[in-house]
């Protein structure tokens, strides 16, 4: 009964938030609309972080790497070949997936904090490459003057902030919906099972490294698509958009949202990014200081976010009292997994 009420309440909140997001560009000014569009793109990266950190149990600080790959692929494509949005999103997702696939050998055998470290190094190295590969990326100056995107063949180019925002919203909603559907399938179930009890899943004949690699590539594709949206929303990209602080902010947002929840990741990432943008607006000098203090405070204040945030250790659906009773946990999850 109570579960049902919660489910309805959640659905109602989701519908309300979505409705709010749809009408937002007519309520707020153009500048805020543009900021909102960028926040949506970053929230989509947050979803990919949640997919890896919470669902697959691979805490990551490097999702900015496929995000950047997607953004630059989209920008180069947009200024040289095609201004069709669908093509750009697809190519950007492909670029993100390729980069993620290239880095799979680096992360697939690692677990927990080692992944955090390796992904951080990957993300930082990608930013370094972006800063130095001038002929393609424009170096630290970034790429500007990217032509306006048209969502589909034959449609007009998106000339206003509202149009760009709505385009971003539609793409984000579609992709998030796809992720939610995917997580309900057997693949999603196996991914969670691999996070909760890898040994057992291996013993029952499942190829956990393959699942982990799949999740990594999928998350890369999502982040890459988000990169394409960033290009649309911002019409300008530079390596500064993909720095280490962005990764850390997204991870914080995902931890606030409860790591394994896609909706939570969207809300958490959006909140954190909005807080950053707001802080940089009102306190240009001290923003990093306040942001750092907020980080520390949030870590202390968020016990629920924190206990769930242990990579590849703990199921999210099991109440805290079961934490030290692995037998009960295995009973609850394993029968569902049998094919």
């Amino acid at each position, binding site marked *: 009964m109570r579960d049902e009420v919660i489910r309805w309440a959640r659905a109602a909140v989701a519908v309300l938030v979505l409705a709010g997001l749809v009408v937002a560009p007519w309520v707020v000014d153009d500048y805020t609309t543009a900021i909102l569009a960028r926040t949506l793109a970053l929230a989509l990266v947050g979803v990919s972080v949640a997919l890896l*950190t919470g669902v697959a149990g691979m*805490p990551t*600080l490097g999702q900015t790497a496929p995000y950047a790959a997607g953004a630059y692929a989209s920008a180069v494509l947009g200024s040289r070949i095609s201004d069709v949005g669908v093509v750009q999103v697809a190519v950007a997702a492909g670029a993100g997936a390729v980069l993620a696939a*290239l*880095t799979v*050998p*680096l992360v697939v*055998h*690692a*677990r*927990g*904090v*080692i992944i*955090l*470290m*390796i992904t*951080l*190094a*990957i993300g*930082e*190295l*990608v930013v*370094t*490459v972006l*800063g*130095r*590969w001038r002929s393609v990326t424009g170096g630290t100056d970034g790429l500007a003057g990217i032509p306006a995107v048209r969502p589909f063949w034959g449609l007009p180019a998106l000339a206003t902030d509202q149009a760009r925002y709505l385009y971003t919203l539609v793409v984000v909603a579609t992709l998030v919906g796809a992720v939610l559907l995917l997580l309900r399938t057997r693949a999603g179930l196996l991914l969670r099972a691999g996070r909760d009890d890898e040994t057992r899943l291996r013993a029952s004949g499942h190829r956990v490294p393959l699942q982990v690699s799949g999740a990594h590539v999928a998350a890369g594709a999502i982040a890459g698509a988000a990169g394409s949206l960033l290009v649309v929303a911002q019409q300008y990209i530079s390596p500064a958009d993909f*720095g*280490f*602080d962005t990764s*850390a902010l997204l*991870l*914080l947002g995902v*931890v606030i949202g409860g*790591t394994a929840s896609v909706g939570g990741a969207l809300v958490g990432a959006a909140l954190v990014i909005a807080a950053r943008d707001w802080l940089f607006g009102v306190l240009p*000098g*001290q*923003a*990093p*200081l306040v*942001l*750092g*203090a*907020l*980080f*520390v405070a*949030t*870590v*202390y204040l968020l016990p629920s976010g*924190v206990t769930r*945030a*242990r*990579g590849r250790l703990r199921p999210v659906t099991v109440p805290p009292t079961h934490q030290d009773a692995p037998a009960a946990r295995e009973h609850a999850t394993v029968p569902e997994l049998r094919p």
Partner: protein
Amino acid sequence: MIAVAAGTNRIDPYLIPALDGVAYGLLVFVAASGLVFCFGVANILNLAHGTLYAIGGYTAAALLDGGWASLALALTVGVLAAAAAGVLLAGLLTPIATGNHLTQALLTFGVALAGGSLLVAGFGPDDPQVRVPAALDGSVAVAGHRYAAYRLVFIVVAALIAAALYLVVRRTRAGMLVRAAVGDPEMVACLGVSPARIRAGVLAAAGALAGAAGVLGAPIIGPGTDTADTVLLLSLVVVVLGGLGSMAGTLLAALAIGEIQTLGVALLPSAAPFLLFAAMAAVLAVRARGLAARWRTT
């Protein structure tokens, strides 16, 4: 020998970058060994490690005036300040459960963000100039080339630090505790050594190493707004490449990175942006199985 005799002219232009690579590598080694301690002994992923280095760098820039006394003063102040920052970090980390890496990483990142902002507020947004002692300001002849005297002396000093570090870890009681804590932290706790004290000690030592690297290395990787990021990235790559098991691994990885960043860039300028990436990928791909086994046990 034959290759050297025959190819002196071919090797010649790369001698200076190679020597630079040694200096750079040893600097990265001293900085990264602090992170290795932090991670290997206290099991903390300290994302504020680069900020500890930056503390040393800014101290050097503020105190060095071209004399030897100022160098000694800067070294003392820089090491103490960075060690104190390490202890502060340990204090902040105390309420967080050990092994909760995600939270630790977020906390240390917050500290890095705030610390970097404080450093910029205190020392200004411009990259400050660093004045090395006047006696070392010139250059000396190395195999017919001019080479900055400071860097040559730095190579010697950093090698001494590395040797001292090795002796401390291998031969002293503190080093024994450190090695024991890597091997079996619970047993060390059972023996009556407080894990909290080990943690504070290790973070202080890591801070001291980073601070020393920051002061001495200020003429090589100078203080600035992106110093902390650079040093953290290089240290992380060292940890990933060298593993946590041995100091020799860390040293080799650091020297390799030094050579990649200097000699590699001189040899293959067009591929320069990708070299560090490629090296990491290559080493990890070759050693994937061995590393996987080791990572799993940590």
